[in-house]
């Protein structure tokens, strides 16, 4: 049942500094495709490089080697890894006018951490919620309040809403594999209770990431220059709500420098959105 093999096998051995399960993914700028021959591949290998971009990137990487200890590419050889995209020339992706204009600058060196992943799966059979609530551990069911069983497991620490139609929502995981693993655990619990549960159409619906740019941001300036994307009503909410069009991500930007990114379906969108916004935020840095 492994439809999406999310990680290439070699990458699981690499430790990432922040303790996340997957290695940090390096440089993401609007001009950059998702994979090069030098780094572990993320899930989507959709675009390929142009030779010009690759040369630029290599130059930049050499300049920044001392800054970005996060990038494991320095320890790997330059030979393309199995499953990597070859360096074929391809047409440059055009900069769409709706992307906020960013200078092609160095990357931030900050990787957003995933905080929450919401996924859904179809267990493929009708369920009797009362039976599940009575016999399963850590399950609550209050039909007057809500028509689903709320089940929790400790490892990975997640919560699931199980509906009588057989559909299930799983929230609280910190990575895609954890979410999938947790969903399978819930499915197994249901299976053990005697229902013919399957694991159909597992899909990640939303991913939330957060990070800290470590400098204060002048939100009044940002809302003025990026009016069509942002709204800032401090009486309502202390953060600025920035609706990025490409990728379609909503960012909550706070004065302290903390940024929350939500609305992603894949991890790469969060990284790309952050790399898009970082130069803009640097421009509105509040200096003393």
């Amino acid at each position, binding site marked *: 049942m492994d439809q999406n093999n999310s990680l290439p096998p070699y990458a699981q051995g690499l430790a990432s500094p922040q303790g996340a399960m997957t290695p940090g993914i390096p440089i993401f700028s609007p001009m950059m495709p998702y994979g090069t021959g030098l780094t572990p591949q993320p899930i989507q290998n959709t675009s390929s490089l142009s030779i010009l971009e690759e040369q630029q990137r290599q130059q930049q990487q050499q300049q920044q080697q001392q800054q970005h200890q996060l990038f494991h590419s320095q320890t790997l050889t330059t030979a393309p890894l199995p499953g990597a995209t070859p360096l074929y020339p391809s047409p440059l992706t055009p900069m769409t006018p709706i992307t906020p204009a960013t200078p092609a600058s160095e990357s931030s060196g900050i990787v957003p951490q995933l905080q929450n992943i919401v996924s859904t799966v179809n267990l493929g059979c009708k369920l009797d919620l009362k039976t599940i609530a009575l016999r399963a551990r850590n399950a609550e069911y209050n039909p007057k309040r809500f028509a689903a069983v709320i089940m929790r497991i400790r490892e990975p620490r997640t919560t699931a*809403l199980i509906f009588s139609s057989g559909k299930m929502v799983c929230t609280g995981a910190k990575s895609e594999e954890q979410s999938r693993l947790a969903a399978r655990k819930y499915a197994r619990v249901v299976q053990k209770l005697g229902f013919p549960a399957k694991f159909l159409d597992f899909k990640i619906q939303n991913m939330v990431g957060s990070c800290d740019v470590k400098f204060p941001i002048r939100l*009044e300036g940002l809302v003025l220059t990026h009016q069509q994307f942002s709204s800032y009503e*401090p*009486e*309502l909410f202390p953060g600025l709500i920035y609706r990025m069009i490409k990728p379609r991500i909503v960012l909550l930007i706070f*004065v302290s420098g903390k940024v929350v990114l939500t609305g992603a379906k894949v991890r790469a969108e969060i990284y790309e959105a952050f790399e898009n916004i970082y130069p803009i935020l640097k421009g509105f840095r509040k200096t003393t």
Partner: protein
Amino acid sequence: MNNTAASPMSTATSSSGRSTGKSVSFAAELQSMMFSLGDARRPLHETVVLVEDVVHTQLINLLQQAAEISQLRGARVISAEDLLFLMRKDKKKLRRLIKYLFIRDYKSKIVKGIDEDDLLEDKLSGSSNTNKRQKFAQDFLNSIDQTGELLAMFEDDEIDEVKQERMERAERQTRIMDSAQYAEFCESRQLSFSKKASKFRDWLDCSSMEIKPNVVAMEILAYLAYETVAQLVDLALLVRQDMVTKAGDPFSHAISATFIQYHNSAESTAACGVEAHSDAIQPCHIREAVRRYGRKIGPLSPFTSAYRRNGMAFLAC
């Protein structure tokens, strides 16, 4: 709907009832609010007291008019529809209110998706209140819209000039601040009447009224109160700017006598002008702003009696 005792300068009957001293006063919050809206770092206490009085009086009058409309409808509570109805004349302010409602819905939708506990809470409560407020406003305006111009506001994407000016002013103000000042500024910007809902309700003191506002109406009232303060600061800053006689300004000799009367006659205009820029807003600016706002300008204005006011000029609607 004839409000004869509707001068904002005189203490209205409601506030004179508290002549022993207002038990609930928003003076401290208003001070921060005015700073965040463009006033100086420490607004004057007299100005704050005056602004509080003006806002309070206007809100009470607004509530009374809304109560009368409710009665016409035969409803038992003042709801948001009555307030929307009162605002129907001024399209720009109405559009700002609707945008505010929309942003409110949108923000709760996003914040819900972030925190998983919030997500569960929302599912448990079973309410689908995405876009609830905006939908509601749209439905109501649909029902009273005769010419279609109210509904056109929802699609309308014009730039709100007043809001634009406020944003630019805030941007200018914050550009020169340092981190500590800016942090304080941001905190002041987050103050609003809706955060202190219970205090706001006590301040309004609706206990003497037969028809009381419901929760949504209170939210809108809190927003209107904030808008009133913002409008007052906008207008007062404009008045203050006018007071400075600029060299080469052809109309400086034509400033009206009543205007100069408010001005402190002891000091010369130039000296006052210089310090007015760095000083806080004075009560005289506020009074002049309200006076100008309430004055009827039109072909028949010389012939209408100055002593009979036909209703208060609401700053917020």
